[in-house]
């Protein structure tokens, strides 16, 4: 389903095309899913669940919230790089191309991420709109890379995303310092 959506868009994806690609019989599909939307929602839930699992394992011993968020963003970018069709489904189809239920799923996930960023940069939690806008900036870069078929580049953009997430709250100097640290963390682990 995710691969078909990434190639043709949700609107033009047919159940038949999904079955052909997966080598699955219609009876088997019908025993698991009510329809195309149900299958797409299951695909969305799969990647959201994997993301949450990655986040929980990202770096539990990091001692401050900013450090934890850096590892969490890194984990998300690596997952999206490894699962490009699912990333397309989450970041593009469910936001702009899918059904209202898919859109609700996207909105819920985006709200959770914005809350994470807000808590990292603004412990008082007084500026949620700003966190959401900063997240939107990062997502615009993610979507450009996905549209260009360059999802494998996403982990390299970690420093830029760390800067965007922190600069409204801690200022340019500290955001740049954190971005450089993120670049070192990424380089050390490669």
């Amino acid at each position, binding site marked *: 389903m995710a691969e078909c959506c*990434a*190639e*043709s*868009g*949700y*609107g*033009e994806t047919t159940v038949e095309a999904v079955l052909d690609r997966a080598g699955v019989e219609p009876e088997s599909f019908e025993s698991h899913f009510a329809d195309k939307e149900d299958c797409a929602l299951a695909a969305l839930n799969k990647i959201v669940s994997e993301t949450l699992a990655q986040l929980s394992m990202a770096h539990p011993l990091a001692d401050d919230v900013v450090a934890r968020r850096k590892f969490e963003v890194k984990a998300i970018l690596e997952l999206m790089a490894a699962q490009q069709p699912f990333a397309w489904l989450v970041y*593009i*189809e469910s936001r*702009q*191309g*899918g059904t209202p239920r898919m*859109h609700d799923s996207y909105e819920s996930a985006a709200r959770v991420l914005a809350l994470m960023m807000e808590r990292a940069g603004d412990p008082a939690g007084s500026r949620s*709109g*700003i966190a*959401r*806008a*900063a*997240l*939107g*900036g*990062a*997502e*615009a*870069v993610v*979507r*450009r890379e996905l*549209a*260009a078929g360059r999802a494998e580049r996403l982990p390299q*953009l970690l*420093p*830029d995303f760390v*800067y*965007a997430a922190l*600069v*409204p*709250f801690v*200022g*340019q*100097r500290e955001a*740049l310092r954190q*971005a450089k640290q993120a670049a070192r963390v990424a380089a050390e682990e490669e």
Partner: protein
Amino acid sequence: MDVQQRETLLRAMLDELALAGYRETSVDRALAAAGVSVEEFEREFRDKDDCLFAAYDQLTAQVVARASAECGGGEPWPDRIRKGLEALLDELAAQPQMARALTRSFPGIRPAAYDRYVELLARFVPFMREGRAYSEVDEELPGEVELLAVGAAEAIIFGEVDAGRAERLPQMLPEILFSVLVPFMGPDRAADEMRSAAMSN
């Protein structure tokens, strides 16, 4: 068809798209609204998609031209960005259906249509570059800072249009301006610009 009919037809197609969705978009209804015959349509466009893509290209050209007209001149960069944003938000607020077609209905058709949306955002990136000169630190800002700023504005605009509140966009100018300026100027100076915009808004 004459220029006026073509313009009306392209608008009618985007109205159809925003109101009915891609599958239900009816060329026949758009032709009726524009007073254009099927034969005239077929002379100009291969099919529904050809017409929709032409309509989207025309709309994006108008939106970018409207915003960029305000970004020229000799005023300081933050003032020009404010004026460009103001023009953009006024344009979108005045045409909620066009705003929806621009941000949601058309990009969602299929990946080739989404590419046009990515290109639209990229067209705002050059207006941001001058902001690097306003940084409060000597170090180079991240390579993607321009698109991060454009994407921050897009996120707020998309949220309002998607919620059916496009007419509220002009009131959100101060918040959007802050989100665009903050990666370049830091939060204190971006907040000054935001307060100034709020007072004159």
